[in-house]
């Protein structure tokens, strides 16, 4: 009928009449259908209520603290009936239902926080920029929060995992340590990583500051790879190779944009740095192992990409941990050496450096250690740094340690210094550094 009338109307009056008719039909259809829908939902709610002993809602429900009157005031009648609060479901009164769609916090990632605090004194006082410092030039004798580092880790899906590590220094500077996702267990015994990460050049370059066996990184790393070591944004592939000459051979190949700002151009630049490491691992006995690694890095040291730097590295780790006394005794010898071939406008500079570190655990809580450093500067093989450190670490528990480090550094281009450093590291949450 309304179709016929539409035909009969003139073009000018059609729109208004059509809208009115549509609105009327829509309203009447809702009015007719609504009671049926409510009845249907009420019966479903009733059946759910009857099966209340075993029924588990998708989210959670809680007894409402509102009185019946308050509920009546706060909830419109149709909402009450739909929610199954009123009428025949007397025993259900006072119950409010909540959906699970907004309560997915169980899927939040694993979050940990590490605090790295230090205080130190040194003699003599000297111009701040005359020597590479543990915490960067310019820091005087004082207490310092090196970093409060957040660790966020979670599986992304059945195939990949995401990891974020970012820190805030005592001055409030934000620092993105690592942010990457990785595929584990790809075909071909391959693990793949993309994002920003610390490079697998040697052993300690990969480690975060709070996990180091001494307060500071060895001089060879700070001299050749900068205060924070070699890291960048790129892709990393790691293979567990078939057994070759060692019990375990693992090859890691990485490509990052930019570099450390010392041997290579600044991180984030358009130039790329290729990094590789071949790990060779032998079990010497049930209680001891030996690992020898060969590392290499290749890139440019100028933003224009004309001058190249090649780095070669050798690392060696021997560790003895008696299985039945692992909590009380450990001996570790580690040494890493690095060679640099740096191209400059004036010619090629060859320089090198390394360290030897010994750590001994002599109780459930005590570690003692020594580290000897020797390093050229990458821009001048004539300038050298030598350093000796003695370290004593007290583990209050698995998650808190205190460390005292005495360090004497000899420098051919500045003042020799002696430092005493107290470090305290604490960790909240599940994060653990799984070194072997």
């Amino acid at each position, binding site marked *: 009928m309304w179709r016929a009338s539409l035909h009969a109307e003139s073009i000018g009056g059609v729109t208004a009449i059509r809208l009115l008719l549509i609105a009327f039909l829509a309203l009447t259809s809702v009015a007719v259908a609504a009671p049926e829908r409510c009845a249907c939902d009420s019966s479903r709610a009733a059946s759910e209520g009857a099966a209340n002993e075993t029924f588990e809602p998708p989210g959670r429900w809680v007894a409402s603290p509102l009185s019946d009157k308050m509920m009546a005031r706060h909830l419109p009648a149709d909402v009450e009936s739909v929610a199954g609060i009123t009428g025949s479901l007397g025993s259900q009164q006072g119950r409010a239902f909540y959906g699970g769609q907004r309560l997915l916090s169980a899927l939040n990632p694993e979050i940990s926080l590490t605090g790295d605090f230090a205080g130190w004194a040194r003699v003599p006082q000297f111009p701040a920029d005359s020597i590479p410092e543990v915490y960067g030039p310019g820091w005087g004798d004082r207490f310092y929060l090196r970093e409060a580092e957040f660790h966020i880790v979670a599986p992304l899906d059945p195939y990949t995992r995401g990891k974020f590590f970012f820190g805030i220094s005592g001055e409030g500077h934000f620092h993105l340590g690592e942010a990457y996702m990785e595929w*584990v267990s790809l075909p071909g015994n391959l693990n793949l990583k993309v994002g920003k990460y610390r490079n697998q050049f040697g052993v300690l370059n990969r480690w975060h500051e709070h996990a180091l066996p001494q307060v500071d990184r060895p001089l060879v790393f700070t001299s050749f790879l900068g205060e924070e070591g070699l890291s960048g944004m790129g892709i990393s*592939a790691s293979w567990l190779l078939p057994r070759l000459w060692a*019990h375990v051979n693992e090859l890691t*190949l990485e490509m990052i944009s930019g570099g450390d700002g010392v041997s290579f151009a600044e991180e984030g630049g358009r130039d790329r740095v290729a990094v590789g490491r071949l790990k060779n691992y032998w079990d010497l006995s049930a209680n001891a192992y030996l690992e020898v690694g060969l590392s290499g890095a290749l890139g440019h040291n100028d933003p224009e990409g004309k001058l190249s730097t090649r780095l070669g590295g050798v690392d060696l780790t021997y560790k003895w941990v008696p299985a039945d006394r692992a909590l009380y005794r450990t001996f570790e010898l580690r040494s890493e050496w690095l060679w640099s071939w740096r191209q400059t406008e004036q010619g090629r500079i060859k320089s090198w450096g390394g360290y030897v570190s010994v750590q001994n655990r002599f109780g459930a809580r005590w570690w003692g250690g020594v580290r000897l450093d020797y390093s050229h500067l990458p821009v001048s093989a004539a300038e050298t740094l030598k350093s000796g450190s003695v370290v004593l670490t007290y583990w209050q528990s698995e998650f808190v340690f205190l460390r005292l480090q005495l360090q004497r550094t000899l420098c051919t281009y500045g003042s020799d210094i002696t430092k005493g450093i107290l470090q305290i590291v604490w960790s909240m949450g599940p994060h653990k550094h799984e070194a072997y």
Partner: protein
Amino acid sequence: MGRMLKILCGMLALGLGLGVRVAVAGQLFVVSTLPDYAAIAQEVGGERVEVASIVRGNENPHFVLPKPSYARLLQRADLFITSGLDLELWAPTLIDGARNARILEGEPGYVAASYGVALLEVPTRAVDRSAGDIHLYGNPHFHTSPINAKKIAENILAGLQRIDPGSSAYYEARYRRFVSRIDSAMFGPELVRIVGGEKLSEMLLNGTLMDYLRTQEADGAKLIDKLGGWLREGFAFRGEKVIVYHKSWEYFCRDFGLVIVDYVEPKPGIPPTAKHVKEVVDEIQALGIRLLLVDNYYERNTPREIEARTGVKALFLPHMVGGEPEIRTVFDLYDCWVRRIRDALAAR
């Protein structure tokens, strides 16, 4: 840099080629975290499996170096058995290093031995580390109970049947034989024949077994008189108060009726302090405690000191299979515990 990319791609291809796993016909390779799981897997798998464990019997399972050679072991594994709890926190590092998709969590080759085990000390409120090195899911040392060994075997059976369905009947027959042997060794064959191992185990777990045996009769005699096996031997120390070093004996003590009064560690995972040792010494003297149980991978100085100050017997026990050279099966292990505790108290 173009040349560099070519080299990188070449190395990628080489790595992929070298990394292809060569399938080995014959036995399945089963790797477990704890040696007890390996021993049980050997019982269920028989000659159709080769087993290896990462933790050695005299090693503290909380603290294991995730060495690359372990990752290599897992890389070859067809089945990986772990507690599935927060005991072996080093295991995920190894799983990641192994690059073996078959043994990832949720995959057919991954077995959580704790599945279905009635765990003790499950936190009932929010926990934090002020309570020491706490375990979020409950006490993970459930392998110290012979009753739980049957549940572990059941989980391993499920894993083996999943990855090797063709041998399903073989594994099930061996599993049933293992369960029968555990029941007989635990309760004695006669009582198992009368009551059934499953019912006996159930009553032991819910604490009603002894009352039941004392009140029920069969063949004209009280069932308690027909009790044999480790539980019968354990009558010598049932109800005995003990001190233990770490919270690793709860399940064994539940099964055999030992009452744990205190621990040498002031809190789980926290090394003993002089103040706490003094408290333990006072407790031992006040309550006349005769026995101190110590897993043999813990330090001996503190237990020895407590022994010297109180006269308590510090008994250093292997905690897992392989903890001493002659302990090769879980039967050897449970035998050893029952016998040594009984003998230690008899000598007091």
